[in-house]
């Protein structure tokens, strides 16, 4: 599995998707291959996919430190931990100063598993920003 196979599949899906979403894929050049995936209508919250030796990582950035109400940071983090398990397929993460939700799939996942993961991740990200907005400036 590599990002080009995933991009090809998602771009070819068009109206045949099982998730009701259309995907737009754009590879990003860099030291490791990254695929930027936009769900149509949700371009502001792209999903970034990278493939390592044993897993496929799908990441959506939520917000960075500067957007947070610093006095409520501890409360926010506790809420994240509490929400981590109920949230389907995705988990919270922090990369540098950015908070993110991500899903990790086995490298042997099917393309339709990946499609499902992306749709759920996008839904989760939108719900999280909505529900966590009280912790943001």
């Amino acid at each position, binding site marked *: 599995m590599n990002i080009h196979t995933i991009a090809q599949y998602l771009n070819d899906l068009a109206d045949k998707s099982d998730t009701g979403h259309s995907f737009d894929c754009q590879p990003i050049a860099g030291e*490791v291959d990254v695929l930027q995936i936009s769900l149509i209508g949700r371009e502001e919250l792209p999903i970034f996919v990278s493939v390592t*030796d044993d897993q496929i990582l799908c990441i959506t950035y939520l917000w960075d430190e500067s957007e947070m109400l610093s006095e409520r940071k501890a409360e926010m983090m506790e809420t994240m931990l509490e929400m981590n398990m109920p949230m389907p397929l995705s988990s919270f993460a922090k990369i540098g100063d950015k908070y993110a939700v991500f899903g990790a799939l086995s490298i042997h996942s099917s393309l339709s598993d990946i499609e499902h993961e992306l749709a759920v991740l996008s839904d989760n990200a939108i719900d999280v920003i909505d529900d966590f907005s009280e912790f943001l400036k």
Partner: protein
Amino acid sequence: MSIFKKIFTAIRGGATEMGEAIVDANSTRIFEQEIRDAENHLTKAKRDLTDVMAKQMQTSREVERLKKEIQTHEGYATQALNQGNEALALEVAEKMASLETELAAQQSALQNFDASVARLKDLIKKSERQLADYKRQLSVVKTTDSVHKATAAITDNFVSGNSKLLNAKESLERIKAKQQNFDDRMAASEQLQAESGDASLEAKLKAAGIGEQNSSADAILARLKSQKQ
């Protein structure tokens, strides 16, 4: 120190700059080589186990054979004694003595094989667990590295593309606005459909037998008949 502790110590220790290598590439390569060596050792140990198990089975068959043969000869010796043929009985007894020596040798070999099999099985299990753990640790290291490199690529891309990742609240508002817009359009088009559908009135009229009627089969048949005449 566990691999997790090492990594978050590295992150806390200032390697937070995007793209900065958290993990030394060279030590990762050495680690990968160690894993490959361990895999080779494991394959060899499994082959050894197969060999030893084959020998164990052979020896165990041999032990059974010898035991049976000794029993048979015991019968022969008794029969010879019953016949009063002491010389023959002695000859059989000598044969039995040599069989028993052989049996003792084979039994001790079997014990050794049993012990080797048990030891090799333990060793293989231990190596497999160790190898799985090495692979997990390597995955942690490589994933950390990959995520940081990916983040660097994404950040660079957004900086050079002159677009920036929007702040979360703005993004959400825009997405919601687009969704609302879409929902409104759907609702509007549904309404339009319903209104322009004088369809509903037509249907009612038709049901009442008023206005244009669908041509029925009877009517067509009647028409064809009249043409024929």
